[in-house]
């Protein structure tokens, strides 16, 4: 028979289970996005395994890792893009500013969390209408406002001087690098709080890549940025923090400097030094 005092102790311990250390530290700094014990499944295949990670406000976070390790899948849980794929489901907790984003209105989440894709995907519309699209679908149709935002976004995407005389030309008439910057401008037009970029430079030459990296620095003060990249130098150049993924798990997540110069895990070291099998 337990004494009443003992009973009280066990009860208390159950109500406040010990919080794991990693979890505690990531909650302590301000996280724009927070994933807690996230699992993700394509049908029966588990693509993400118990991922816990906090993404800091107005910082650039990079995801690296070998092909097929789940970087895109994880990125797409933050704007719930994975929901558009049939027969998938997500487990765990995903927070945007501390609120459960799985319970928010999905279009609202996507309005706040923008995305740029690996392959540029301009709509078959004019340059102007491409950038205005997000404003219009979100009910911001006042002409002067749309015009102002289109110009502002194109400027922030470092594309304005190149396209200001051909805003009514089809977007397909732009070069590959310009198209990708157009897609960034399009995402920026609705002033998202977070911008997710999935290998945005993988189809671009070094100069176009540099332009995009520069513009990430420009928008960092107002936007939280998460970028997936296969390019280690790029991660080292642009990211404040870097997460290394391997086979659906987050192996290591730390300041970029630590990941590249002094990683704790052997897998991380092998990968960043290019010794990966």
């Amino acid at each position, binding site marked *: 028979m337990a004494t009443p005092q003992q009973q009280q102790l066990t009860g208390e311990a159950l109500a406040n289970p010990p919080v794991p250390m990693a979890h505690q530290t990531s909650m302590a700094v301000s996280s724009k996005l927070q994933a807690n014990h996230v699992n993700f499944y394509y049908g029966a295949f588990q693509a993400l395994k118990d991922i816990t990670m906090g993404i800091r406000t107005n910082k650039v976070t990079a995801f690296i890792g070998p092909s097929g390790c789940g970087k895109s899948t994880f990125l797409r849980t933050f704007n719930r893009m994975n929901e558009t794929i049939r027969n998938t489901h997500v487990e765990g907790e995903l927070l945007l500013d501390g609120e459960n984003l799985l319970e928010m209105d999905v279009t609202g989440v996507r*309005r706040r969390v923008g995305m740029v*894709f690996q392959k540029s995907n301009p709509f*078959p519309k004019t340059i102007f209408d491409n950038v205005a*699209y997000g404003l219009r*679908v*979100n009910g911001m149709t006042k002409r002067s406002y749309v015009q102002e935002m289109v110009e502002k976004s194109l400027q922030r995407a470092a594309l304005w001087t190149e396209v200001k005389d051909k805003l009514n030309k*089809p977007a397909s*008439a732009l070069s590959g690098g310009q198209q990708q910057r157009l897609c960034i401008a*399009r995402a920026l037009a*609705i002033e998202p709080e977070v911008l997710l970029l999935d290998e945005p430079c993988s189809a671009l030459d070094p100069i176009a890549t540099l332009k995009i990296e520069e513009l990430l620095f420009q928008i960092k003060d107002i936007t939280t940025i998460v970028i997936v990249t296969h390019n280690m130098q790029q991660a080292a150049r642009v990211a404040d923090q870097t997460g290394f993924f391997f086979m659906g798990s987050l192996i290591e997540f730390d300041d970029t400097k630590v990941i590249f110069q002094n990683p704790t895990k052997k897998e991380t070291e092998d990968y960043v030094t290019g010794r990966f099998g």
Partner: protein
Amino acid sequence: MATATYARSIAGVTGISASRKITNISMLAFTGLATLLCVGVLFFILGYLLWNGGRSLSLNFFTQLPKPTGETGGGMANAIVGSGKILLLATIIGVPIGFLAGVYLSEYSNKTFAFILKYVVDLLNGVPSIVIGIVAYALVVQPMKHFSTLAGGIALGIMMIPIAVRTTEEFLRSVPNNLREGAMALGATKARTIFSVVVPAAIAGLTSGMMLNLARVAGETAPLIFTAFGNQFWSKGWLQPTAALPVMIYQYAISPYDDQHQQAWAAGFVLLALVLTINVTARLIISRGASSARR
């Protein structure tokens, strides 16, 4: 390089080369001949129609009503207008239904259901046109107790549905998924994405597909015989019987009068010219759309 020379020397030694050459040349000849025949048939038909009906192809043919049997002259103005009205109705009925079903098939339905639906649509496509005519007769003509333009339009409209569904489905499916994702990532709803991004991306193909579909039913005769029926005079309205070119051709071709035979040939030429014009326009739209997409 080395392997190629080796192969050639072997071939030369064994004499395979000569027999290969013969096969090659005869293949070219046969396929070329078949192609020539295909093209030739079209020009033969056009020429034959013009040769036999050319004399009746005056301005009168387009502006005048048919003359009573036995009299010469007159035209088929009523049948041309009647055909136009029937085809307009068919488009209004067949295209939206087929288009929306195609959108559902490509964008909303799951795999199994899509498979079943496609199968059903293909079966509908295989229903002989005369059967569709009988159905339209039973469903529209009998209850209304009249043959009518409307009944003819419904019959041809039903015939347009299967191709409209498959055209829509195929062209929407060919739109890359990253466009849909791009729109949805900006907060667009699924419906908005479909109608503001996916459909515009496929519009050239959709338009021309629908035009080819229209051209395909423009010459249908059987379903019109018991629906639009025919009329020697101007049709008194959408709910009254009307003349139509294909039916007119049929009636005049089996008549005993030579003058009517000529008119039938002329009508055949006009109908074919109409169908060819629609076809060529549709192809032009497709190639324009394709080249603008490539830019």
